[in-house]
């Protein structure tokens, strides 16, 4: 699982550098999110611009991350959802749960 992370005024931005997020690699992202929360970050934006496909395992990772962030009184926001990814969030009604932004900048702006 290739990811990059950066800090922006107290918000961690994690970019998933994979074109698929499925049962074959979702556990690695789950562990990465867990590591970020354990390191003290509580506000996280996940940039999904490179993810063209997600399955229910991938969705489950974000559900876990959302719950972990809520436990810490933090947030997990999503940005740059591609067509199939957006469709999957809508199909499973998770778009009603997550704050979803068209860009990372918009997501970061929401913290100000």
């Amino acid at each position, binding site marked *: 699982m290739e990811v990059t992370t950066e800090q922006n005024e107290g918000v961690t931005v994690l970019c998933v550098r994979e074109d698929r997020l*499925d049962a074959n690699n979702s556990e690695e992202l789950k562990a990465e999110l867990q590591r970020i929360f354990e390191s003290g970050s509580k506000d996280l934006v996940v940039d999904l611009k490179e993810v063209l496909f997600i399955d229910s395992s991938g969705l489950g990772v974000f559900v876990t991350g959302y719950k972990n962030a809520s436990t810490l009184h933090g947030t997990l926001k999503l940005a740059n959802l591609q067509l199939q990814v957006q469709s999957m969030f809508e199909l499973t009604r998770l778009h009603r749960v997550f704050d979803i932004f068209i860009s990372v900048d918009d997501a970061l702006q929401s913290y100000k």
Partner: protein
Amino acid sequence: MKNNIDIEIIIPGNTRHLRLVGRVGQQVVQELDCSEEAKEELSSQLVTVLTEGLVNAIKYAGCTAPDGQIHVRITLAEKNLVVRIYDTGAGFDLDAIPDPCFSPCGMEDKGRGIFILRSLMDRVTYTCSKEGNVLEMIKELP
């Protein structure tokens, strides 16, 4: 459509080949005589269905033995697209699987796969037998 297509794929019972099977599904959809937009939509749905069905067989039907194999059959006919995923695991009761909870306070990280299959396909059945089990998913074509 140019010709009916019937493709069989046998893969090991692990998640390493999800992408490969998805690509085969995408190529099958290219054989349809329909708009590029319709092909793109069906292709995306088929990749999703193949992935969810395979993961279901691997993780939940109990097909995780080292020699466990999963047999996938994709049939594209005049009026429908049929995906069958055969496994030799313990199987499960499809009707006993509820829809996921949509409320933020009750939502779980698992339990959306079958819901997704049911949402994207017109008919989904899972049949258990001594010889093996089959998840059959049918999509009527426009």
